[in-house]
Every structure is written in C-alpha cells, then in structure tokens.
C-alpha cells in the first residue's frame, strides 16, 4: 500500500508540473474544476497541493462560503484508492465543535473526489505572522484548551492527526473559535501497524519520528501541540531547522541530549546518538518561553517531553492546573 501511495504522490507532482506548464502558456485554459452534482458555485482557486486542489465555493442552496478539496484519483484500474476510502471515512466520523466539519463528499464521473468543508477565514499561522500572535494570555489559554479538546476527541476514536501545525488550526475570528483541519494524513492507529510515512513540516514533528522510529502513537500529536503552544507565546517556531537532523539537534540543545535515563530505549533507537550529536545540557524551556505563567510552563514541559511514554496525554492535559479557570476564560471570550 505504501508503495502505491508513493507512486500516487509522485504522479500528482508530475501532473501538477504539466498543469503549471499549461498555465504558463495560456493562463485561462487551466482545467476547470469539476463540481458536478455538488450544488456549488466555484469562486476561486485557493490552493494547489500535493494531493489536489482547493477551491473557495459558494453553496448554491445556503449561500454559505465553503471550501472544496478536489482530490485527483490515479491508478483507476483498482478503483477508488484505499487511502482515500480510509481518510474520507475517518473524516466523516469526526464530529466535534473544534474540528472543521466535512459537509458532504462525492465522486465525480471521471477521476475526482470532492470534499466539501465549512469555511473559516483565518488560520493560526496567519494570526501569528500578521497579527503579532495572541499576546493576550487568556486567548492563548482558550486556544490551547480547544486544541487539546479536539485532539483528545480524535485520540479517543483512535485517530491521529499527524500533521498538527499552526496553518492547520483554523480560527473563527469573531467567536475566537478554534477548529482543527487537514486530517489528510490521519489514520487509525494500532499497535501492529508501522507508520513509515514522514510527511509534514519538521518543526512540529515529534522526536521519536525525527529519530526514524517506525512505531509511534498518540504522543506525536501532543508534541506538535506543545510546539504550537510555545509558538503562540513567543511568536515564532520553537526550533526552526531545514531538515530532520538539524531539527533534532535544535531540540537537544533546548532540552538536553537524551540518555538511557531520560529516554529509556533511546540507545536502541539511535545506537549512534553520541556520534552524530554533541552532548548538550538542558537549557530549560523557561529561558526560551518567557511570559508564560508557571503552571503553563509546567504543562508545556510535560508536552515537550523527549520520552514519548512519559509525555502527557491530551485527556490528562485538559485536567492540568493551567486550565483551572478555563470556564471563566471561555465565558469572557465568547
């Protein structure tokens, strides 16, 4: 299956290359979006990704703005690809106030799967970069609580997100409401499945993935949430590296190079750890993440724990002392 998926992704890239060439020749003759049977009016192309295209649309019946993701299917000799069956099915299962809603889905006559989502104006990345990040401590706390609620819900259904980052955290600005999006890499986890794909921005990737561990579980999302937490407070990504190795070194500089004591099993996972990486002492999160109250810093340290088995779960995080006044916070913001 993974080989097929790799072929699939490669095929998408080549198709996009041809599409780009075509557009350079004649801008107006790009392939028109096929929204047959979806009752949508296409307004604009919002994004072109490795998996297909994203359109801003108007729902003909309700007049509401929606986002349509159009996935191009390849290798049609085997019918609808298995990853699409899985991903769409899992997306349909997710019903939570803090998860972007999949309104409907359809297969077109030729080779597209159309996914229609509710539309939100902003994402957290935009919020941080253009609005100078949520300086308001109450907003940070409210956002964190909502993100963790969504993640705990997914994990309770055995669904991982696996690509949590600020651009996948959508914001309904008027309500200060958070919705997680882009579960395109989500999959049901099981102990005997080995996830070998490593996709997504490395800045939010858990150390056990950066170490090439082939067995991981819910904890990878908690690491990503921890990175988002820190970024909301300091206004920039915690460790910004261009590749996995440098990202890992940046993490070790911050938290200390792991030992068998701090991360049991690390010497088996990375036998050559001390050849490739210097032995750093921990600098401490408080030196980087200033302006965060002590209980928030404590929660952050439990999320950014190198040892996955000791990292806090989303369920437990929601009960942390940092959120003791969260109801008051929610009422204030809403």
């Amino acid at each position, binding site marked *: 299956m993974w080989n097929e998926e790799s072929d699939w992704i490669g095929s998408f890239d080549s198709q996009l290359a041809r599409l780009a060439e075509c557009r350079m020749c004649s801008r107006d003759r790009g392939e028109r979006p096929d929204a047959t049977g979806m009752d949508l009016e296409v307004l604009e192309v919002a994004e072109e990704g490795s998996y297909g295209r994203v359109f801003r649309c108007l729902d003909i019946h309700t007049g509401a703005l929606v986002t349509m993701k159009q996935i191009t299917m390849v290798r049609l000799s085997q019918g609808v690809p298995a990853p699409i069956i899985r991903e769409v099915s899992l997306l349909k299962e997710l019903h939570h106030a803090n998860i972007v809603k999949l309104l409907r889905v359809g297969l077109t006559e030729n080779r597209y799967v159309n996914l229609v989502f509710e539309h939100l104006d902003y994402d957290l990345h935009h919020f941080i970069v253009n609005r100078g990040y949520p300086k308001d401590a109450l907003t940070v706390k409210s956002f964190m609580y909502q993100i963790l609620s969504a993640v705990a819900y997914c994990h309770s259904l055995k669904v991982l997100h696996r690509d949590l980052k600020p651009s996948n955290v959508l914001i309904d600005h008027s309500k200060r409401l958070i919705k997680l999006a882009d579960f395109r890499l989500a999959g049901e986890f099981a102990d005997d499945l080995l996830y070998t794909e490593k996709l997504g921005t490395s800045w939010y990737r858990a150390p056990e993935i950066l170490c090439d561990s082939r067995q991981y579980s819910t904890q990878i999302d908690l690491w990503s949430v921890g990175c988002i937490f820190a970024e909301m407070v300091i206004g920039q990504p915690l460790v910004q590296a261009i590749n996995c190795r440098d990202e890992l070194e940046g993490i070790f500089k911050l938290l200390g190079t792991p030992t068998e004591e701090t991360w049991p099993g690390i010497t088996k996972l990375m036998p050559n750890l001390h050849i490739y990486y210097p032995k750093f002492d921990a600098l401490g999160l408080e030196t980087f993440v200033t302006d965060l109250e002590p209980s928030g810093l404590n929660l952050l340290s439990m999320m950014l724990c190198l040892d996955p088995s000791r990292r806090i779960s989303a369920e*437990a995080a929601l009960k942390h002392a940092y959120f003791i006044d969260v109801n008051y916070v929610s009422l204030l913001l809403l």
Partner: protein
Amino acid sequence: MKISDENSSKPINPTSFQGGIECVGNRKMGQNRRALSVINQDLVAEGRPYPCVVNKRALAEKHNVCEKKQADPGHRPITRRFAAQIASTQKNRAEGTKKSNLGNSNSNGFGEHIFVDEEHKSTTDDQPVPMSLEKTEPMHSESDQMEEVEMEDIIEEETVLDIDTCDANNPLAVVDYIEDLYAHYRKLEGTSCVSSDYMAQQSDINERMRAILIDWLIEVHDKFDLLHETLFLTVNLIDRFLAKQTVARKKLQLVGLVAMLLACKYEEVSVPVVGDLILISDKAYTRKEVLEMEKLMVNTLQFNMSVPTAYVFMKRFLKAAQADRKLELLAFFLVELSLVEYEMLKFPPSLLAAAAVYTAQCTIYGFKQWSKTCEWHSNYSEDQLLECSTLMAAFHQKAGNGKLTGVHRKYCSSKFSYTAKCEPARFLLENPL
C-alpha cells in the same frame, strides 16, 4: 437448483498484489470456489482454486496460533466443578471491582484489569490452570471453603500479571480513552444499523439470496485470509447498500464482491486486486462493471466505513470474559452463523456480540455463564441475551445441515481447531421463549 460440484483442476498462479507485497509461502487450495448458481443462472462453474493472497497481519496471527497450539498439551480440560468455582470467584471479584468503580470518575483500576493483549492473556490463562489442578487433586479431603480461598489467591496473581501487561502496552493511551471509545461505539451503532425489514422493498432478491451470498463471501474471506473486521464490514456494507438501492438478482453477487473490495481497502494492509475478485466470480462481471458498482456504492454509502460492527464489541466482551482461544473461536463461529441469517438484523451489533460470547460460554461450560464483569462491559444482562442466544444455539445445531454450510466447514478445519464439531448448548433450546 444445484450448487455445482467441486472438483480438482489446474491451480491458478498467484498474481502480483497491490502495493507490491511479495507472496510468501504459496498455498494450494484444498477446496475449490463454489459458484452462486442459484443467484446467477448464467454462471457456469469450472471449479478453479483461488489465487493465494497473503497479508502481514494474518501471517502474524498464524504465528500466534502456532505458539498457542504448542501450549495446548499443558492445558487440561476444566471439570464442571472446577469451572463452577472459577465462575463463583470471578463473580465475587467482579462485584467488588464494580462497586469500587462506581465511586470513581475514572476506571483506571477497573480498566487495567481488562486491558490484556490476547497473546499475553493466553499465556496467563494457560499457566495457572495446571498448577491449580495439581493442587486441587490431592486435597479432596479438605473443605470447599479452603479451596475457594486458594482459588482467590491464584486469580489475584492473574490480576497482578494483567496490570504489568497493561503497563507494557502504554496504558496511558489505552486507559485514558478506551471507555470513551466504547461509549462512542454504542452511541454510533444505532445510526449504522439497517432496518430489519429492508428486504421487503427489494423486488428481485430475497432473504435466501442474501444468505447464499454471505455464506459464499465467508468462504471467499477465508480463502483470501482476510481480517475478522473485514468480514463484518463487508456484510454491513451489503445490508446498508441494499437498504437504499434496488438491485437485480444478477447484480447481487457483484454487490457482494464490491462490498468486500471496499472493506479490504478500508481494513487490510494489502488489498486484493480487482482481477482476483473477478476471477473468484468466475468472470461473471467485467472490470468496468466492478468499478462502476464501486463508485455507486461509495456514493450511496457516502464513504461511511467507520461503523461499529459486531467485531469491535466481540473483542471487548471476549476480554471481559477472559476468553481463551477455544471460547474466542466458538464465539466467532456463532456470530458468523448469525451474519448469514437475515432475521438477526433485528439485533444491534453489540447484542449479537454479547450473545455470541454468552452462548459460547454456555456451550463450553454446559451451564449458563454470564459474569458481572461481562454484564458491566456489555451493558446487557443475561435476560436480555436469551432471545438472541437461543437463536444462535439453534443455528449451531443446524450449522452442518442443509446447503449453506460455509461457516460450518470453515470452523471444522484444523486452522479453527475444529470448533464447529462441539455440541451445541441444548439446554438453551429446551425452554424456548
């Protein structure tokens, strides 16, 4: 109408599989595919064996099976009196645990007791029994009370072992969410069940044809060596599709094939290729027909594949029953017999699963057996299970008779430890409701 005779012929070479997984240990099929002549009159059977399909998880499961079989010689049959003692002690412990659980907002203490890997549980179950039997036999002169005390000690050791096993499997991920997960499943199953009288709206097919189709698909599922969950999802997709779409009888087998293809795409690591599915239908359909039916089914079902089938409940309830392999196989035998029977659609998947475990325990122990632990986790009392259980016992009794014997033949094999050969629980049939 006759079902075609099976006969030996030249085996078909295995074809390459989606995802490029190599075929390991080619197997020759002892039995040939049986055509659905009743459903599709144009179908002419030529009795070809099926191509070999291998997936990783199934191989792992086989390995586990081998390990467990090696442990069998050390296992002694449980006497009626010994089983009664176990049951009595289990009930006492379960009641105690349940009381303490009611006072807590979380179920960590209770949950840890339940969360045992099947592999570990098998080891745990196998070891204490011979010890206890050895102790019990030379102490006939001692009082029952003394024996009960010792039994409690032994079972407490199992509890300790369970907790250790739970830690090894990352209890944080499991304990925090497992109760939420099953609450979600129970809530969800109401919406993913179909009406138990949907067949009345079909004009060209009937209950009998559905039974023939599913009986055949169970055989296909076994030949392809697919996962349990794939079979349950396949049947769910068939019923949900037929509840919404009128189907001609000539297309019913196509619906079954495509349902299995979709279930494989959702559940399996390695998906059979479309060509293989066409072969097992003896080329009754073209690739174009298969792909068009797939598109129709996916759109009709709106991509809803994440449904709680009886399988997810089976896993949980078997854990609650601390099932050994024999009980597990018998429970699956019973629930698969129920898949074939249209009338069982009136029971929700969780009830089917609970009744299968209950009926299996009655069959093995020779008396009614439903512990407080099982009642707690299944949300069903013994009374609530009796109607469904009686039907299952009846299916067990007649499983080897008539034309639809796919499940019986499957569970008569050494692979399934000849489970189908054990006697049904007749006392469940003696006082029908």
